[in-house]
């Protein structure tokens, strides 16, 4: 390798006879050197900026991670010691504040709320994106409403649910009232994420399907929804998180009774409501911490489940 190098460095040749070079190159030696220098100085400046930005982003990421990690650690440290098998017994008593009824109610609530909201939300999204004329006033109105609703505090939904479902429709303080209230609460979320997911499917897919003689319905169900499934799934996950974490909208609709509401017309507390009640009474702080551990695990399990479903869907494709 060494032998291949010219015995005299190239630059020295140039320096030795700049005049001859100026003759040969139309731009001339000086201009070439100047541009090179300004370029290199700019690179150094860029590097400094890059370093600064790197430090900034690293510290941002570190700070974020620290907050989340400390929270998880705090929950585990305070909650795990209180996590005893007696807390998972089938019945709740004043001595043993079992969370089993609440766990059951939470699962029922998540499943049934999604069962109400998902068809409605995805159906509305399909209508707004695929059927309604684009730029129609109705679409704009619905989008605006959904956006506004997703910003309203959940206690307002609780009030609405109490007035409409509990009193007006005479469903009483029941898990059903709570489920219906939560359905209204997460509808905008499902609608918007489904809309985004459908919008992300390129128009070339629609064209391809229509050009093969497929109608709108077939295009939606065979091409668009499968391709939007990933986005819709993350909407479901977000919505499930909201359902599990919701307490304000449930206290006055589903009540705080710690009994499994297999009969939907009877009241029943979910985990978050259960925890709220324990904290409110102030007598079972460590048991409340144990509930938070279970909530945490539930969220992790849900994320994991969704990940598994997703990767399985991908596998089916490949």
């Amino acid at each position, binding site marked *: 390798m060494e032998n291949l190098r010219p015995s005299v460095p190239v630059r020295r040749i140039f320096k030795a006879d700049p005049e001859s070079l100026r003759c040969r190159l139309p731009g001339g030696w000086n201009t070439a050197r100047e541009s090179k220098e300004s370029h290199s100085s700019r690179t150094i400046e860029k590097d400094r900026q890059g370093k600064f930005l790197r430090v900034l982003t690293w510290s941002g990421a570190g700070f974020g991670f620290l907050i989340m990690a400390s929270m998880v650690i705090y929950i585990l440290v305070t909650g795990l010691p209180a996590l005893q098998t007696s807390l998972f017994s089938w019945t709740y008593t004043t001595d043993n504040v079992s969370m089993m009824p609440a766990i059951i109610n939470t699962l029922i609530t998540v499943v049934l709320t999604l069962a109400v909201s998902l068809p409605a939300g995805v159906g509305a999204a399909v209508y707004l994106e695929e059927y309604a004329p684009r730029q129609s006033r109705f679409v704009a109105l619905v989008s605006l409403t959904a956006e506004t609703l997703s910003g309203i505090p959940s206690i307002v939904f609780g009030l609405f649910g109490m007035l409409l479902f509990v009193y007006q429709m005479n469903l009483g303080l029941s898990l059903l009232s709570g489920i219906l209230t939560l359905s209204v609460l997460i509808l905008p979320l499902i609608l918007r994420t489904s809309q985004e997911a459908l919008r992300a499917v390129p128009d070339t897919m629609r*064209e*391809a*399907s229509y*050009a*093969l*003689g497929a109608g709108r319905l077939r295009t939606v169900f065979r091409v668009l929804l499968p*391709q939007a499934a990933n986005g819709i799934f993350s909407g479901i996950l977000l919505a499930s998180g909201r359902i599990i974490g919701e307490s304000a909208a449930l206290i006055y609709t589903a009540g705080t009774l710690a009994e499994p509401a297999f009969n939907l017309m009877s009241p029943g507390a979910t985990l978050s409501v259960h925890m709220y009640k324990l904290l409110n009474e102030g007598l079972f702080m460590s048991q409340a911490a144990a509930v938070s551990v279970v909530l945490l695990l539930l969220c992790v399990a849900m994320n994991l489940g969704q990940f598994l479903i997703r990767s399985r869907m991908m596998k089916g494709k490949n």
Partner: protein
Amino acid sequence: MNQSASCILQVKNVDVFYGDRQALHGITMSIPEHSITALIGPSGCGKSTFLRCLNRMNDLISGCHVRGEILLDGEEITETRNVNLLRKRVGMVFQKPNPFDMSIFDNVAYGPRTAGIRNKATLEESVISALKQASLYEEVKGDLKKSALSLSGGQQQRLCMARALAAEPEILLMDEPTSALDPISAERIEELCLKLKENYTIIIVTHNLQQAIRIADQTAFFYQGELIEFNDSKMLFTHPACEKTKDYVTGRFG
């Protein structure tokens, strides 16, 4: 032009408007069966718009409306109720390969399934036959369950042709099908067109004049929304009747 050949498609006085803007002015032409017709012209001259009239893809564009008569086998198509049936008869291949995010098999079976075929053996038969017609079968026969997106660009385009052919169309519209492909893949598509014209009528939009010379039996030159000249390719490229055509095919503008 060979007038004796039977014409599968007759276009009479077709105007197309996008809102207030008129994109096509009184296009009249007859397209003979089992031949390749090339549509050439500078960008924005309306050749793609014209192509999309033939399977009514323009319906999907809001504010676009078509006036005039288009007869497929003597049957008016601009008024026909069942646009899906029309699109089954007039297939289309797009500029960029656009396979669905599904397996190769499911992509090709989309057309037959849309037509209501459920029988597994029948589906398999038509998928394999379409893949063979598109000269893709040899390359993918090992694994038809593989994702269509794992294929190369040229293979994807041939898959899209197979997908269109599986719907058993009479006419195949191609909107610059080779412009997004490398020269080798483009050549394979051209060979394919020459092979397919025995059974199908092909109408192809192209920016590549050499391509039109190589494969098209007749060529139509569009300019600013008007059909300037329509003739046998040989005639049009060697002895253009109009000054504008001559300027375009000799590369004086474009």
